[in-house]
């Protein structure tokens, strides 16, 4: 469905997008952002689901099964860790507001 040259266009534009989104980030957000982007490539989950869904032999099913477990681990773990980290920024911001008020 996605043909060669179109795929390359998507690839190029997405690469620029990633670069631009990150380029002016303060140092304090480096770790949460690394964690956040780690979560985003957890989208590999949908690929692993499709691969396991189309598996035709036991070997493919075993590999696909492991793949989906790993991918779900990437997505959920990435989310939980990032959320916990960013929650602290939120908590600290709230406390500051209270302090000023």
């Amino acid at each position: 469905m996605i043909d060669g040259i179109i795929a390359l266009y998507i690839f190029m534009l997405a690469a620029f997008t990633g670069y631009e989104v990150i380029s002016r980030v303060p140092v304090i957000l480096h770790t949460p952002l690394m964690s956040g982007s780690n979560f985003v490539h957890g989208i590999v989950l949908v690929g692993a689901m499709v691969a396991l869904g189309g598996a035709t032999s036991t070997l493919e099913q075993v590999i696909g099964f492991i793949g989906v477990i790993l991918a779900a681990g990437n997505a959920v773990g990435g989310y939980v860790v990032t959320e916990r980290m960013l929650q602290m920024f939120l908590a600290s911001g709230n406390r500051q507001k209270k302090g000023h008020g």
Partner: protein
Amino acid sequence: MGVFSSQSMIQVSYLVVAFLFIVGLKRMSSPVTAASGIRWAGLGMLLATIVTLAFMGASQTNLILVVSAILIGSVLAWVTGKRVAMTDMPQMIALYNGFGGGAAAAIAAVELFRGSEHSLTHLALAVIGGFIGAVSFSGSLIAFGKLQGLITKSIRFAGQKFVNLLILIGTVGLGVVVVFGINDAPPAISLFFALALVLGVAMTLPIGGADMPVVISLYNALTGLAVAFEGFVLDNAAMIIAGTVVGSAGTLLTQLMAKAMNRSLGNVLFANFGEGSSAACAGVNGTQKAIEASDAGVMMAFSQKVIVVPGYGLAVAQAQHKVWELCQLLIERGVTVKFAIHPVAGRMPGHMNVLLAEAGVPYELIADLEEINAEFETTDVALIIGANDVVNPLARTDPSSPIFGMPSLNADKVKNVIVIKRGQGQGFSGIDNALFVLDQTRMLYGDGQAAANQLIQAVKAVE
């Protein structure tokens, strides 16, 4: 089927997913909106998973397998992610990132074992993505092991780079065999993945712990790239876009981190940092002088300006709350207090900021290296808590030191330096610290949290 076929439902929802991911990442790049960013991205992930599950049209057996695998992986990751201490975040990121790489490799393996119907381009992309994913998987697991303290030694031997090069050539050769189906035999595919996994281990083992943040960031970018490649194979736009965005963003992050440590990426990967350093280094002579907490507390209470330099020791001791309590006491007494954060303090850029934010330290008291380095000369007391290499003046003065050239905090310019440290040992890089033996430096031995507690008592006792 009606107007909306399964395929077009999936395609349209993936467009929305890609939008949510990019908005999420954009929001995560500013402290004000960061917390909502992850929720935008999370919503995207949820949507993608549900739509895929609903419309992918698998056999019942496979569908049951898919759902149970998702449940197993999610529960395991949810429990570990919730339980882990903030201080152990870096290695958890490495672990979850490795999972993603492994999943990309698994997709490639399933597609390759199923064989047939793919064009040469698709096969090549599957193989490249599988290769990168497998290297990222085993490499990230080694990085996790090192930061978790499961692997304590950096394994190095003569001719290691040559051996690694041979493994790389072998893997690439097998990849070519797989793509062109010279044997069309599964053994080649299995051997290809096995060698790629070995390569990830062999590449990561010799890298010292201090360089792990850069390495993890690099593997993060690589996993993104692997996901994008497998997205091409599966005709999956969401994977292509998300994977590529992470690939390029991750590459930029890796560069920023390497730059903060004043090292090139090639240097990190191939220079075997810290090799024989302590023997070659002649700079440190002298003895460390101890101080009592009560004296240190008085010294701080009667100073005008105090700069706190936190490091990994603060994280290990969970001392951030006590340290902030101490600083609040000092601020009440009219002392100016600032926190100086080295770009790579802790195990990851921003690690200290996360911990200080957890304790409730306001942003405006936290300064990074460029902002604060000139202020050390006008400061009365520098309180170093569990930091070592980032305040080592040898980085500026001793060209033979392995950390020479790395930007460091000028804590040696301060009139009085108090170092809270558990013992007399070396830092993570294994290098002696010239700061600790200076005339104006006093050592307060003990666990960071206990020492901060003693200092609080000492400051409270001052009238």
